[in-house]
C-alpha cells in the first residue's frame, strides 16, 4: 500500500497538527512515513501545506508530484493544489469554506462542511479532526484508537479538556461520510 496525500489550509486550521498526528499514528502501526511541512516565509492568512507519504515500502521522493488524495480546508489551498490530483484520486474539501470547484469527471469529490460541523459541536478549531474522520472513513489509513492515543499525548496538561471535542469531531466526520 502507498498513499500520497497533501493537506492544506489557512494557517491556524490545524493541518500541521493533523498531518503530524497521522504520521505518528501510521508510524506506530509499522508503516513508513515521510511528512514534509511548508515552513518559514508563509504570511498570516496564507496557505500552510503538508506533503504526507505513507507506504509499506521505502519512500523515495518526499515531494508529491501526483497525489492520491487532497484534504483542502479553504479555497486558496484548493486552487494551489488541484492540478496535482491524478486520475481516480480523491478530493476532500471543507465545503464550509470552498463553494465552487472545477467540474471534475474522473475524481471522487467529498464535500464535508467541516467548519460548520465543528462549530455545531462547540469548537470551530476541531474542523481538522472532522476532515480526518471523513477522510479515514473512506481511506481507512490510520487506526483511530492509535491516533487518539497520539492526540492525548499532544493534549497533555492544560489542553486536556479539548480531547473530548476532538474525538467527537472525528466521529462526526465519519458519520457524515456514512450518510453521504
Amino acid at each position, binding site marked *: 500500500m502507498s498513499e500520497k496525500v497533501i493537506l492544506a489550509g489557512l494557517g491556524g486550521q490545524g493541518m500541521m497538527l493533523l498531518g*503530524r498526528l497521522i*504520521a*505518528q499514528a501510521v*508510524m*506506530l502501526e509499522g508503516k*513508513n*512515513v*515521510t*511528512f*514534509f*511541512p511548508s*515552513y*518559514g*516565509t508563509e504570511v498570516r492568512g496564507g496557505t500552510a501545506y503538508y506533503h504526507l507519504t505513507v507506504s509499506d515500502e*521505502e*519512500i*523515495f*521522493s*518526499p*515531494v508529491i*508530484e501526483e497525489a492520491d488524495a487532497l484534504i483542502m480546508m479553504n479555497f486558496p489551498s484548493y486552487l494551489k493544489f488541484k492540478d496535482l490530483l491524478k486520475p481516480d484520486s480523491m478530493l476532500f474539501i471543507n465545503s464550509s469554506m470552498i463553494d465552487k470547484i472545477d467540474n471534475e469527471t474522473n475524481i471522487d469529490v467529498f464535500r464535508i462542511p467541516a467548519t460548520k460541523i465543528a462549530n455545531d459541536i462547540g469548537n470551530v478549531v476541531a474542523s481538522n479532526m472532522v476532515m480526518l474522520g471523513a477522510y479515514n472513513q473512506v481511506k481507512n489509513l490510520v487506526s483511530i484508537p492509535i491516533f487518539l492515543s497520539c492526540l492525548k499525548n499532544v493534549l497533555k496538561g492544560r489542553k486536556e479538556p479539548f480531547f473530548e471535542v476532538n474525538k467527537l469531531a472525528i466521529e462526526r466526520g465519519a458519520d457524515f461520510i456514512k450518510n453521504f
Partner: protein
Amino acid sequence: MTLTDKNKKYLLTGNEACAEAAIQAGCRFYYGYPITPQNEILTHMAIRMPQAGGTSIQVESELAAINMVHGSAAAGARAMTSSSSPGISLKQEGISYLAGSELPCVIVNVQRGGPGLGDISPSQADYFQAVKGGGHGDYHTIVLAPSSVQETADLVFDAFDLADRYRNPVMILGDAQLGQMMESVVFNKKCEPNSFKKDWALTGANGKKRNIIKSFYPVRGELEKFNAKLQAKYSLIKSKEVRYEEINTENADIVIVAYGTCARICKEVLMKNKTPNIKVGLLRPITLWPYPSQIIQEISEKVRAILTVEMSAGQMVEDVRLSVSGRCPVHFYGRTGGGIPSPKEIIRKITEIISVKEEITSAT
C-alpha cells in the same frame, strides 16, 4: 522529551534527529546562532543539552559559535555548531583554523538557496564551499551527505568518530528539505567517545608536558612540513573512508550520480521503473569528500552515459567529470534557487539523452 530508548522509533525532523544524535554521540558543547531552516537544531539543543549535562549556547554570531567550538575541541571535548548557507560562509575562517590546528569537531550545514541571503528553500549550492575548502589554505573537511532523517542521525554519530580518529573537522551537508521533513528514526548506534585517546588536548600541564594547539608556523620550512603531514592524513582518509550507495548499476544504460535529497528523488525514477525501455542505475555519494571517484570511473567504462542531478547550477558534476575523464558523456540536470527537480523532469532528461544518442548511432 526523552529520546534515549534505543529500540524505539521516533517521528522527528531531520534537524531534531541531527541534534539528538549529536548528544547521544557524546557531544556536550553546542554553539549556534539562529537561521532558517536549521533552527530546530538550536531549539532541541537548548532543551536537551542541559538534561544531558552539557552546554548549549545561543551565541552572538556565527563567528563566536565556530571559535567557541575551537576552544571546546582544543580541550578535548566533542563539540558541534550548525547553521545554514549564509551562516556557514561566516564560519569559514574558523573552519580553516580548526583544520590548521587539527581539531576534531562537527559542523552542520542545512543548505538553503543562495548566493547572498538567497531564500530559505532547499539547495545544494554549497558543494564547492564544502568539499574544496571554503576557507583559506590547503585543507579538507570530511563531508558527509545524508539522504533521510535516519541517515542524518547515523552519520552524525559517525561524524564524531571520524573527527576524533583523524583530528579533523567533519561537515554534515544536508539541505532544507532534509532538515524540515519528519520521518521515523531509531537511535541505535553505539557511542564510545572515550575510545579515542586525546593526549594532545589542553587539559592542564600540572605534572606533565604542556601541549600546544596552533595553526601558526612562522619559522621557514616548518609550515611546509606541517602541510606535508596534513596531506599524508588526507591521503589516508581518501584511501579508507570513501562511502557510497550503488543501485542497479550493473548493465545500466545510464547511471545517475546524485546525493542527498536529489538522490532520493532519482531513486523514485529507478525503483518505480518509470523508464521501462531504459535501464537506469544510481550512484549516491555518501562522502562528498573524500569523493567516490574510483567507482564512478569504473561505472563510466560500462555505461552509455552518466547524468548528474543537483539542486545547483552544476557543482558536483565537475568532480564527476574529473572521475570519468572523458570515458563516457557526462550530462547535467540542475535546479537552482529553491527549485527541487521532480521525477518527471529527470525522466524527460534521461529520455532526451538516450534518444539523442540513438539518433547519432543510427545515423553513422
